[in-house]
Structures are given as structure tokens and as C-alpha cells.
């Protein structure tokens, strides 16, 4: 079993590495991790250091990406903003994934009316324009980072739930589950030992895409003035501050705009790559 798993993983890696777009995505994503983990290594300036004598200076040796509307170093803000944006993406997706896993596992495993009730709830949630819900709740509760992460998470778990449920449904009919049951394994043991590990691959792909989505939602909220609030930097609010000066202080909107674009693109290409590599039969799905 162990050897089999290793060779399966090796196959998976081999297929993944052959996909150039996925590799590019992986490079982007890992680079971001490094940036978010060690922001000070990439930017010399304090991201909140204001200098009213240096407002909106174009890129220079000292400020490679220029300065913003309070004379702060844009590179430093971008680098520290990367951390905030990634945090928003990961925590929001983490919440969504956790809910999706629990709902999907329970619905798929227990079936019958439990499944019926939970899936109707999923249907209802799917009917809402989730951005409407997010907007309403954030506007009511206030745009703190915690609220933003929680609300994005709470409105985006339905896809994961459906995915996990479908996997669970097919897995629980499989031989190894029947075998485990025959050996007297309890429900929880079956769920955690046999079904959950097998459902992880698709959920991982889903989560990868979810992180990208959450980063975009944060930038949309920032555009509406209810995203992560300044002076805490996020890519969304740097871009929003830049948009009002888009024509002459191009560096203030072009860099965060590109950063969001490249990051989301990176996550997507990586996610697709993982999916292709994990399921060679359904390549491209």
C-alpha cells in the first residue's frame, strides 16, 4: 500500500511537471509564499512609514515601485499586502473547505433525509448571488479582516460540499469500505480512515481555486470601500487607492493590478494542473 501510494504520487508529480502552465503557476504560488513569509527580505522600507514630502513619486532606485499617496513605499506595501491578501485567501478558503467537508461527508455518508436536508440547504445557498450576501454582511458588521475572511468562507463552501458528497457517495460503495465495515470498523473510523483521505485530492483542487477567488473578492470589496481597511495594506486597497490616480500615478495601480492578476492566474493554472495530473483519465476536466 505504501509503495503503491509513493509510486502514484511519483506519477502524479511527473504528470504535473510536464504541464508547463501548471509549473508556472506553482512557481508563482511558491514565490508568493516566500514573500508572505519573509516580507522584510523583499522590501527595505517600513510599509507604514509616511513621508509627505515624497508623495506619489515614480519608481526610483530607492523606491523601485514608487511611492503612494502618503509617500509610503509601494514595494513594501505590496510585499506586506501580499501577506494580508494571502491570509484572507487562505483563511476564507479554510473555513469554506472545513464546512464543505463536514457537510459533504455527513450528507454523502448518512444519505437519506440527512442528505436531503443538507443538500436542500446547499441549493438554497447556491441560489443567492454570494457577492450580494457578502456585501450585505460586511456592510453591516464592518469591514474588519476577520469579518471579511469569515463571510467569504461562509458563503463559498457549497461547491466543496457537493464535491465531497459526490466523492463520499462513490467511495462508500467501494470494496475497501465494505471490507473495513466487515472488520467491524465504526462509522467515524470509516469516514476518517477511508473516505476522507480519498476525497482530499478533489477538495485540494477546489481549495486552490478558492484562494484565488477570495483574493479577488477582497479586491472587489476594497473597490467598494469595505475591504481590508487602510492603513493595513492589501492588494485590493492599494489598487483601489491607485485607481483614482490611474492616469498619472500608473505605478500605484499597475503593480497591484498585475500582482492580483498573476497570483490568481497562478493559482488557477496550478489548480488545473493538479486536477489533470491527479486524474489522468479526465484530463482537462
Amino acid at each position, binding site marked *: 500500500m505504501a509503495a503503491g501510494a509513493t509510486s502514484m504520487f511519483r506519477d502524479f508529480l511527473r504528470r504535473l511537471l510536464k504541464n508547463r502552465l501548471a509549473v508556472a503557476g506553482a512557481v508563482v504560488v511558491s514565490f508568493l509564499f516566500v514573500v508572505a513569509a519573509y516580507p522584510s527580505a523583499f522590501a527595505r522600507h517600513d510599509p*507604514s*512609514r*509616511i513621508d*509627505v*514630502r515624497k*508623495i*506619489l513619486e515614480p519608481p526610483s532606485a530607492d523606491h523601485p515601485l514608487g511611492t503612494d*499617496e*502618503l*509617500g509610503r513605499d509601494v514595494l513594501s506595501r505590496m510585499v506586506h499586502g501580499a501577506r494580508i491578501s494571502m491570509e484572507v485567501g487562505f483563511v476564507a478558503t479554510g473555513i469554506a473547505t472545513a464546512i464543505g467537508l463536514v457537510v459533504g461527508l455527513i450528507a454523502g455518508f448518512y444519505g437519506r433525509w440527512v442528505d436531503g436536508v443538507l443538500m436542500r440547504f446547499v441549493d438554497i445557498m447556491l441560489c443567492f448571488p454570494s457577492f450580494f450576501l457578502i456585501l450585505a454582511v*460586511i*456592510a*453591516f*458588521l*464592518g*469591514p474588519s479582516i476577520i469579518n471579511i475572511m469569515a463571510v467569504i468562507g461562509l458563503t463559498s463552501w457549497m461547491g466543496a460540499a457537493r464535491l465531497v458528497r459526490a466523492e463520499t457517495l462513490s467511495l462508500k460503495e467501494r470494496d475497501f469500505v465494505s471490507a473495513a465495515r466487515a472488520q467491524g470498523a465504526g462509522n467515524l473510523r470509516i469516514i476518517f480512515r477511508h473516505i476522507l483521505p480519498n476525497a482530499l485530492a478533489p477538495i485540494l483542487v477546489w481549495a486552490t481555486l478558492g484562494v484565488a477567488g477570495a483574493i479577488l473578492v477582497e479586491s472587489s470589496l476594497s473597490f467598494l*470601500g*469595505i475591504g481590508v*481597511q*487602510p*492603513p493595513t495594506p492589501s492588494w485590493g486597497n492599494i489598487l483601489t*487607492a491607485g*485607481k*483614482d*490616480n*490611474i*492616469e*498619472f*500615478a500608473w505605478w500605484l495601480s499597475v503593480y497591484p493590478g498585475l500582482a492580483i492578476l498573476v497570483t490568481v492566474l497562478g493559482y488557477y493554472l496550478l489548480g488545473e494542473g493538479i486536477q489533470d495530473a491527479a486524474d489522468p483519465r479526465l484530463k482537462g476536466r
Partner: protein
Amino acid sequence: MKIARMAAVALVLALVAGCSKEKADPGGAGAPGAPAYGDAIVDGSIGDVSGFLTAVTSDSASHGAANYVFNGLVRYDKDLKLEGELAESWEVTPDGKRITFHLRKGVRWHDGEPFTSDDVLFTYRRLIDPNTPTAYAEDFRQVTRASNPDPHTFVVEYGKPFAPALASWGMHILPKHLLEKHPDISRSPLNKKPVGTGPFRFVEWKTGEKTVFEANPDYFEGRPYLSRVVTRVIPDPATMFLELKSGGIDMMGLTPLQYTRQTETEEFRTSFNKYRYLSFGYTYLGFRLSHPFFSDKRVRQAFAHAINKKDIIDGVLFGFGQEATGPYKPGTWVHNPDVRRYPFDPEKARALLAEAGWTDADGDGVLEKGGRTFAFTVLTNAGNESRAKTAAILQQNLAAVGVRMEIRTLEWAAFINEFVDKRKFDAVILGWSITQDPDQYDIWSSQKTGPKELNFVGFRNAEVDRLLEEGRRTFDMEGRKKAYFRIQEILAEEQPYVFLYYPDALPVVHKRIHGVEPAPAGISYNFIKWYVPEAQQRYTTFQK
């Protein structure tokens, strides 16, 4: 750009344009060309109108639109002195308790009905009617008796002399014949399709899109030159600026950044005139005075010295504003220029803090006193860029004297309901707009510190209380001035707020539009005299 003219309206946040002090930029005068009728002016507004009856709306977009259609009995002229509008003249009895308005004759509503004192009396009754969801009833409840002895005379009596009364009659007068069948005026058709006495007649309101008005040929001050006024709703400021540059709108308020950096091109200058004047408002840092840190006057004074107001004005306003010293606008009669000032002086701030017992004993750069470090949180509302920037600069200024300030931005309703109203704050960054009448009883009186009341910092000063009463009861301008001058001295000494800055209003108007003459009241006071010379007219299909 919208001009809220009513003295009764004191909205926070509304950086409504208003008054002026400074001269327009060179190049403000247009090329020669005789005044001509015709053409349209297109204005941009962030928000849509919510209704046209000022009594039941409270946003600047609605009030601005209503000003085209309606008139009050009185208004402020270009030098911010009260003058008659629908009232030709008025008299106040020597005891200050009775005002008699003599109304203009021959004025007609847009539907042709004559305007009379019945309409005024009707408006007054509706303002104090519990069925009217108005926020402005308070001034009119001071009235003990109102009557109209003849069609052109209107008399109001007050129990006590009430100086802000006169200005309150700037409230728009409503047509009785169209409203008397509607117990709730906010739900009457008139709130959507107004009929007034004003210089422009209502044409259409496409919700979320635009409002359109056309010149009233029978206006009692003469037909406005411009045939149409269109206000387009453009929610995003960046889009609005692009619309301006591409010719989609003729007029908007610029941000300081746009004013300095984005409109200095030859191309822009050939098409637009920029104006600049001090707006009617100020931004402040307000302390909860019962907070153990801030109950000590020396701490508040230390803050005033530690804050670099000039940096804030340079950084947030690009120099387009003035350092604030109190709650009144420089250049107006009530403003006292000789109050105590607090020049930027971190050393002095540290000394004052040390005097109050705050020292950095453990050398970590943050002050302590009795085991408590000097750390607090300042609150401000989300979505207000200049306040957020102000907060960021304050944070840096205060850090330099050993005070750690956290910034928290909150959505407006939560901010007010959960924090300000419940007094759960250390300090706030907020703004007040400045009304033409200097009465600020609600903001500074110790009677107004209850929940939901506006003296939320909890300022209590017996002398100020007495002076506020005195200011309300005195009609004589010199007498009032004395009271308010003294109030400003006390406020400057006590620093319940650190008054930060008065921002400038920076309107821009297309160059083909002539006759714009900045005055202390701003630019819109002579809107009906704005014109486009025949040859430069652009929207010719509206000609009539």
C-alpha cells in the same frame, strides 16, 4: 457640486461646497461673449436623489436638486448675509420674540397657481406635524404661534428670543394646493415630481441615472440663462473624472490630487476653469473626556503640540486647506482668529506629557504611568479616504512622542451605534460641517451629553453652557460675536477636540460656461446668471 443652502442642515460628512474666502485661480474669467439663453450644464453626482422635498431628505444630492426647484423665505447671499428670497423683507420686534415676513408679490408656482402666505403657513404646519418624517422640526417647534394676516404677510412668534430662527426660514416653501391631500408629504407625488417657485422646473428623474431641469421662464428674478440642468449619477469618482475629461460632464468637485497633479495640462486648462475656496467643514480628533488618559487637559494639549497639522494638510489635502483652531470657519464674522494655538513641537508635547505623569521608564519608546502604557485606539469611519490618511499621519506623529495609537475603521452605522453612542471609544476622527448660523448648543452644551446626543465627547464647561444660551438669545450680531469669541477661546484652551483642518472645496466648471464668480458663499449662489455665449453653445437641441 451641490450647494446645501439651508442653515438648518448640519450634516456630517457632507463636504458640501459652500463658502469661500480665496480668490479663484488666474484664468477664472471667461473669454468675452455676450450672455445668451440656451445650452445645458451637466453636473456629476456620486449619489442619486432620494426625493425633492428637503424637509424629508437629508442627503446633499437631494438638497442640491431641490434648490433648483424651490425657494425659502430667506437665503444667504454671496457674502453669507441673510437676504430675502420669497420674503421681500422682514421685521424682528425689539424683544426678539416676533418676526414678520413680507412676501414677494406676483410669484407663481410652476403650475401657474399663485404663491401666498397660505403656502408658508402650510409648510410650517407640515414641518411640525408628527406624520412628517422630518429631521428638521426642532427649530420650528420653538414657534409658539404662526399666522398669516393677509396673503402676503406671515408672522411667527417665539416664547423666548431664538436667534437661529431667522435662518431656519430658509427651509423650502411647499405648495399647499398640491400637498394638502397628502398627510405624509414624503409619500406624495411631489417628492418625485416637484413643483416649486424656483429658477428651474422639473423635467424628469431617471432613478440611478439622472435628473433634468429646465429654465423657468417666469422666475421672479428673471429666467436663468442656461436652458437645462442635468445631474448625472456617477458613483465612482475615477469614472466621474474620466467623464469630465471626455466631455461627458461639465462640472464636478475635484480632489486635491486631481487639482494639483492631473489638471495642470494645457489641454485641461483650455477647457476648464478651476476654483478654490474654503469649504464649510472641519475635521477633528475628538477625545472621550472621561477616559483616564484624556481627562487631563495637559495630555490633550500635548497631543495638539505633537500633531503636525501642516503635514496633514500637505499630505492629505496637498495644501488645499487651513489649520483649524476652532469650530468656525476663518473669514466669517464669528471666527475668532486670536485663540491659543499649538505649534508643532514634539519636545513641548513630551514635556506636557511628563508633567501629567507620563514617562518612558522602561525605555521601550512608549510612555507609561502607574504601570499603564500609553496605548489607545482611534476610531474613524470606513470609506473616508482623507480621514484614513489623517489617522495614519497622526499615528506617526504620536509615536514620535511615545504614544501608541491603533487605528480602527468601522462601518458608519456600527461606528455610531456601537461605539460613539455607547461611549465605547478612546478617541475618534470625525468631521462637522459648519452651519452659517453659529449656534452649536447641541455639540458643546453639557445638557447634550446623553445617549444619541451630539456632545459625545462629554464636554462640560459651565461658562460655555452659559455663553451658548446667551448666543441663542441674542439677535444683535456684536453681542453674539462676543459670546462665540469667548467660547472659541475656552475650546482652544481645553482642547476637547484637537481641531485639525478646514479643507478647501475645489470645483471645476467647463470654460464655455461664463459668469461664475467665486464669493464667500462659493460659486453657485448666482447660478441663474451663468451663461454660454451663443457661439460656444453645445447642447443646442435643448434650445427654446
